[in-house]
């Protein structure tokens, strides 16, 4: 196998979400005998190399051909297998129509797990940074969309999507991720959770932005603002009950995501809040622009999705709420 003398993979040393996913998938193989993993020659990058090493006979190589891989997942599911399609988020987007027809429309129990989403991709640059994947997959009827926040949650979400009967799109992440949750953490599809209490404003985040939202809450606390932080790992179906409660109890919301502000978490939150209990919402994310090369933290700063910008958005949301009162 090509693993001999392979150069060290960049960014795989830490607890990245992709590594957490790959390890979890490997550990779950025994519990899901029909599980097969589909790879487009990026197993080393998606965390699936762990699975390949432990269960080579259950790793199906499709080569660099995502369209065929995604539609074939529909066929595998049709004959009783439990296929997990893996790849880089931007390249899985090229198989969007296959996901729409052969998985979504045919309502197959197939999972699509995308590593390398958002600015978190880093130096590979704008061409490789999928900033529209959540919006795209969210628009497929019946498609569940998940973006876990840390390695613990990623492992739990991996089990949850295998237990769930239906099509799922899940984001992992390339860069080492801060561990936010303890071993007692609970993940349930469709449920958000309050990870920091506060009643002045609610910060709703997913993926790598949950850590930044928690940092923003610290910054706001220094100024006397008690921000509530909601981890919202399921973007679809969104936890509208929790959002309604936050709208009622804090009256101002900020969303934060490593994604275009159009169509992603922010839009999903606005749809739910707008219908249930409208309140001022500020959106932190990519302002309808593509990414560029740089380290993930540099890019987050450059595109203004770090904690200070989330905190600033929180102050704006609070001002807007006050103006309404």
């Amino acid at each position: 196998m090509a693993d001999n003398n392979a150069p060290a993979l960049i960014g795989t040393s830490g607890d990245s979400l992709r590594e957490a996913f790959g390890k979890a998938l490997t550990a779950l193989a025994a519990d899901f005998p029909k599980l097969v993993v589909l790879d487009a020659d990026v197993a080393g990058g998606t965390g699936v190399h762990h699975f390949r090493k432990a269960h080579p006979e259950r790793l199906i190589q499709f080569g660099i051909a995502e369209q065929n891989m995604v539609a074939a997942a529909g066929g595998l599911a049709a004959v009783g297998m439990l296929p997990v399609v893996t790849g880089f988020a931007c390249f899985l987007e090229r198989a969007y129509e296959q996901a729409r027809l052969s998985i979504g429309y045919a309502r197959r129990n197939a999972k699509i797990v995308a590593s390398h989403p958002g600015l978190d991709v880093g130096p590979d640059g704008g061409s490789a940074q999928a900033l529209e994947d959540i919006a795209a997959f969210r628009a497929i009827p019946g498609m569940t969309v998940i973006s876990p926040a840390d390695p613990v949650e990623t492992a739990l979400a991996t089990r949850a999507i295998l237990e769930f009967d239906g099509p799922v799109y899940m984001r992992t992440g390339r860069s080492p991720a801060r561990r936010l949750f303890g071993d007692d953490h609970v993940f349930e599809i469709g449920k958000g959770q309050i990870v920091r209490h506060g009643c002045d404003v609610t910060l709703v985040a997913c993926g790598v932005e949950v850590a930044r939202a928690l940092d923003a809450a610290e910054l706001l606390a220094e100024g006397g603002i008690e921000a509530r932080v909601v981890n919202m790992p399921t973007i679809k179906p969104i936890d509208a009950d929790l959002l309604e409660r936050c709208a009622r109890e804090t009256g101002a919301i900020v969303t934060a995501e490593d994604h275009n502000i159009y169509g992603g978490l922010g839009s999903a939150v606005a749809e739910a809040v707008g219908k249930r209990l409208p309140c001022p919402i500020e959106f932190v994310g990519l302002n309808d622009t593509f990414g560029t090369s740089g380290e993930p933290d540099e890019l987050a700063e450059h595109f203004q999705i770090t904690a200070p910008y989330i905190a600033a958005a929180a102050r704006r949301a609070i001002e807007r709420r006050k103006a309404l009162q």
Partner: protein
Amino acid sequence: MSIAAKLIDRNDAAPSFATGPDIEAQIADAARFTRRHAIAAIYRATSGHPGGALSCAEILACLFGAEMNFWPASVNDPYRDRFVLSKGHACPALYAIGAYHQFCSKQEALGLRKLGSPFQGHPHVRDLPWVETSTGSLGQGFSVAVGMALGMKMQRMRARAYVLLGDGELQEGEVWEAAMCAAHHKLDNLCAIVDYNKMQSDATNEAIMRLEPLADKWRAFGWTVFEVDGHNIAEILSTLHLAASTRERPSVLIAHTLKGKGVPFMEGSPAWHGSVKLTRQQAADALTALGASPEDIKDLIDG
């Protein structure tokens, strides 16, 4: 599966039509029914794709009437053979052959393209489980069939996957991704059939995007290639049988066909590829050319 084996298998499996030595005649009857029913459904729908439905009637009739281990009672049997109509726009022919073999009612299948009917303008597996997957976006059905063949092999099921592709469809890059993949994984339980009527939506393949040398392309991709007259039932049957005995490689039948076959004013004309509206007179003329009696024509058009 061989015809003989099929006959034996069918003894206790509630066959949808009587079996016997004259199977070619029965398949010819099924193909005639398929053409008439498809034309009637497209006329009633006031839209639909007749050309490519007419060109594949014998191919479908051979698969459903003899080759495949698939009948209404086996729709939920995990060990059934799978058929995928990757050229989903030809579904009036699929619905017709399905009706002939009692996968659905003949009358209901005439409800093609109507609101509330499960017989949509392209096949949808959630409306009609026996169509196996949803198609209509060219190339995808082929990949789905590759996935089915892979999954059946991994589960050591002896069933086979059959997939019918259009020739214009071969211009989709995904088709060649799937072709490479099937050969790489040695899917000898996969049989592709190309309905090679040489025409696509706007014009001939040659004018739109050349496919030749087509057999060489498939060979180069690692497939066992057979060329057949796609309207010759005996030849199709014996070649499917040969394909089923191929080991370690997927097989493809390049079936040379005539677009619009059986309806003189449609034959060889790309004008009848697309979704067209048939006038009552055109429908009646087509049905007459297809050998329908005046009573049958009245039933098909008005019944």
